[in-house]
């Protein structure tokens, strides 16, 4: 993959001493970007890396001239073709946007107009910049979709955004940005919202288009794996200040600033985590047998056949005391549904046993009693806490609901729990909005712990957090496990995180477990083709291990999970290549499971 890059020469675009202020109405302003300078060169990629609040996205919007009204530019210049873009009136700027400087955004699900077909939106850009007219515009739209390897181009042109998956929408966004062959492409977290295999496809696509067209690529990302994969040069930003600016190899091999060193140390690296002692000998706390979850699909007319979505299909596993089982897979594979079914939050068939007691079918008081034993932590700590209650009320609420303590007792317990998760007892009087994301996740953990559960189902508990915070929360979860003997079901899409905290891993695909075994077995010696595909797509924060994603570029078809009611897929057969390592049998080379 290390093809020769064009040498450094005159920059296509230069940002010089750029500062951005956000005004807070009453004359006061906060500096969010301070004295940022960098050059973009044709055919080369510059990554701006940093955690949330570092000002990296605002810098890219400043280049596009799309800053929100509250942002002011007290100093600096953005030079493009001997012109300062900051001084350009909007009318002239709009002629450059999309034609000379194009942008791709983070959230492909909401970045396309839902009322216009994909073809129309592409043609709009082509017509605006007078690339072509009439039928020629349609032809160009078709060509560019082919260039981004969109399957079934003719059909896609007529489809609306909601009919496409996230990865396909991001391809449309790339096509739209590249159709005028811009000199500069800005990509703001282009793969953050996507699954790893889709991320690999999008990154590969951007690399190919860049090589073909000689575009200067400015990539904004928080993911050091993506940086290592894509960057020629890197700017590391922290709270609006440039911490370090260096070539990619230099940055990863000999980081100069403390912040970069800290950031790199916090990034979980697949294949580097120490192997955790096996917990296989410990007694089983939780046993899941043949779990099935099906959602009925509403019929179009009373004459249509009844159908169901097979969300979870024949899932079985066991969880030992003090053990962490990772449940990994891509979005829509049924991992969160499995977690919810175990909490009895939706109807399922099959059995979930806690210490031999069957949970399926429990209602009312019996169900409430069992909830003391199994608790849950959610992905988004901002949405998981009621903004109108104090932290003390939030953490004490489970105790109140279960009638376990009077108000003085609750106060004591809340203080104890807050200290257990590394916050001060004084936090109880404050409200959730006064805490950062990582602190809020600690509050969520404290709330889950308040009933002294034996099992915690953690659904993507660190996905919404910055890497440095992520590492702290993971360490907290681990130390709580050691102290309290908790068992975790750790639902995640991030292989590197799973490797760090899990004793065993189960890989889910289309509602089924295709491979389960110890971390070592599944992640370092994957047997199932889907596990291999998944692992090969994880970008590594290491410039010497750039991956070749080309094999992944052709989108693979996922089997349709909607089946006629009562359909019984043949159960998976599992092979056991090593003790404790089970792999679903497949036809040679195919991913199709049913």
């Amino acid at each position, binding site marked *: 993959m290390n093809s020769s890059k064009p040498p450094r020469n005159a920059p296509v675009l230069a940002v010089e001493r750029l500062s951005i202020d956000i005004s807070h109405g009453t004359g006061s302003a906060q500096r969010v970007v301070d004295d940022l300078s960098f050059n973009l060169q044709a055919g080369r990629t510059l990554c701006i890396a940093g955690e949330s609040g570092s000002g990296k996205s605002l810098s890219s919007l400043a280049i596009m001239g*799309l800053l929100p009204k509250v942002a002011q530019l007290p100093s600096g210049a953005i030079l493009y073709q001997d012109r300062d873009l900051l001084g350009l009136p909007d009318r002239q700027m*709009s002629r450059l*946007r999309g034609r000379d400087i194009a942008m791709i*955004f983070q959230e492909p699900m*909401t970045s396309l*107009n839902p009322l216009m077909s994909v073809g129309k939106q592409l043609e709009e*850009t082509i017509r*605006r910049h007078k690339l072509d007219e009439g039928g020629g515009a349609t032809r160009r739209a078709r060509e560019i979709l082919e260039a981004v390897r969109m399957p079934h181009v003719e059909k896609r042109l007529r489809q*609306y955004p909601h009919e496409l998956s996230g990865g396909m929408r991001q391809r449309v966004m790339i096509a739209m940005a590249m159709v005028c062959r811009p000199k500069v492409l800005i990509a703001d977290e282009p793969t953050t919202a996507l699954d790893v295999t889709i991320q690999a496809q999008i990154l590969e696509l951007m690399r190919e288009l860049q090589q073909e067209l000689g575009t200067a690529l400015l990539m904004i990302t928080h993911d050091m794996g993506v940086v290592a994969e894509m960057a020629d040069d890197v700017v590391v930003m922290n709270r609006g200040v440039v911490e370090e600016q260096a070539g990619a190899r230099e940055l990863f091999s000999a980081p100069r600033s403390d912040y970069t060193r800290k950031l790199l140390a916090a990034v979980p690296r697949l294949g580097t985590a120490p192997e955790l002692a096996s917990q296989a000998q410990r007694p089983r706390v939780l046993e899941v047998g043949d779990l099935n979850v099906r959602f009925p699909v509403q019929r179009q007319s*009373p004459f249509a056949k009844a159908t169901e979505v097979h969300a979870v299909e024949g899932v079985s596993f066991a969880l030992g005391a003090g053990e962490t089982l990772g449940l990994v897979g891509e979005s829509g594979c049924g991992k969160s549904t499995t977690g919810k079914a175990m909490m009895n939050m939706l109807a399922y068939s099959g059995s979930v046993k806690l210490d031999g007691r069957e949970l399926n079918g429990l209602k009312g008081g019996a169900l409430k009693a069992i909830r003391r034993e199994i608790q849950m932590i959610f992905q988004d700590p901002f949405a998981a806490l009621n903004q109108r209650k104090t932290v003390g009320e939030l953490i004490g609420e489970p105790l109140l609901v279960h009638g376990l303590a009077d108000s003085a007792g609750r106060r004591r317990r809340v203080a104890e729990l807050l200290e257990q998760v590394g916050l001060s007892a004084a936090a109880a009087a404050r409200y959730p909005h006064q805490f950062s994301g990582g602190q809020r996740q600690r509050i969520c953990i404290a709330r889950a712990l308040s009933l002294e559960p034996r099992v915690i189902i953690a659904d993507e508990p660190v996905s919404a957090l910055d890497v440095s915070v992520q590492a702290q929360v993971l360490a907290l979860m681990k130390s709580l496990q050691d102290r309290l003997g908790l068992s975790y079901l750790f639902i995640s899409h991030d292989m590197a995180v799973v490797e760090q905290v899990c004793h065993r891993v189960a890989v889910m695909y289309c509602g089924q477990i295709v491979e389960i075994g110890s971390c070592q077995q599944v992640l370092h010696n994957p047997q199932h083709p889907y596990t291999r595909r998944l692992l090969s797509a994880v970008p590594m924060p290491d410039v010497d291990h750039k991956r070749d994603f080309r094999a992944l570029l052709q989108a693979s078809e996922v089997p349709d999970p909607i089946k006629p009611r009562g359909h019984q897929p043949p159960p998976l057969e599992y092979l056991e290549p090593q003790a404790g390592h089970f792999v679903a049998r497949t036809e040679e080379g195919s991913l199709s499971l049913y």
Partner: protein
Amino acid sequence: MAWYIAKRLFYAALILLGVSFITYLLLFLIPADPARQIAGRSATPEVVANIRHQLGLDLPFYEQYLRYLWQLLHGDLGRSYVQRSQVSDLMAARIGPTLQLMAAGIGLELLIGISLGLVAAIKRNSGLDRALMAFSFIGVSSPHFIAAMLALYFFAVKLGWFPLGGYGGIEHLMLPAITLGVLGSGWYSRMVRSSMIEVLHQDFIRTARAKGLTRVRVLLRHVLPNAIIPVIPMIGIDIGIFMSGLVVVESVFGWPGLGQLAWQAIQQVDIPIIVGVTTLSAVAIVLGNLVADLAVLLVDPRIDVKNS
């Protein structure tokens, strides 16, 4: 799709049945006696009883209602007590002018409402925005009879820009239509404003700007169609509110439409006409809502009939 429409039409029939029942019941319960009204002040009790028997008003309520329904199924809306001709004939003669005024009024409502909302959203939190929203608030809260008479006084009597009511060409239509349009536009301008502001913050608007589209094109092609979607079902709901304004405005401006017919009938307790006009209004409202819901399906490709 066909199944969806069939289902909706079935519900519509149920709603109409309910509306006719409630109207009939209310008119049965009011203390005014149509027979006495027809017979006049000096009539003897025998004459009044005779008229009452002729009209079938001495029958029990359920029998009167069922008889009415039976006739309705045959397309017969009954005879007017006062005007002594078929209600359907009376209504047919007046439906044309009413439809004219409705089309013009609703058209102006939308035109004024959407453009004011659009301007207010673009200039949000400015003096102009506040002025426009205050204007819409006044429009929404002023009673039709006062506004209509003020409009007539200023623009027709004082300034002489428009004729003093009556039916005729476009100049006769203008003033009542504008009155209805201005008074009804407030709901729309407020709704368009808030929905525009919401859409302006969407990611795809940033995408449209990043494509290099001009401000005007972004507004008209990307913001407005998305902002208008919640307004479409509102038009269906608004037809009912609009009708009540129509009755008053038609009477004030002497517009020979259904509203005026209803107004006269109410004063004379001419029950067949009141029930007839009410039933027709109910049909209009139900159909309006159905058409609006179908129109949303055309505009928004995301709505799937099977989930509604």
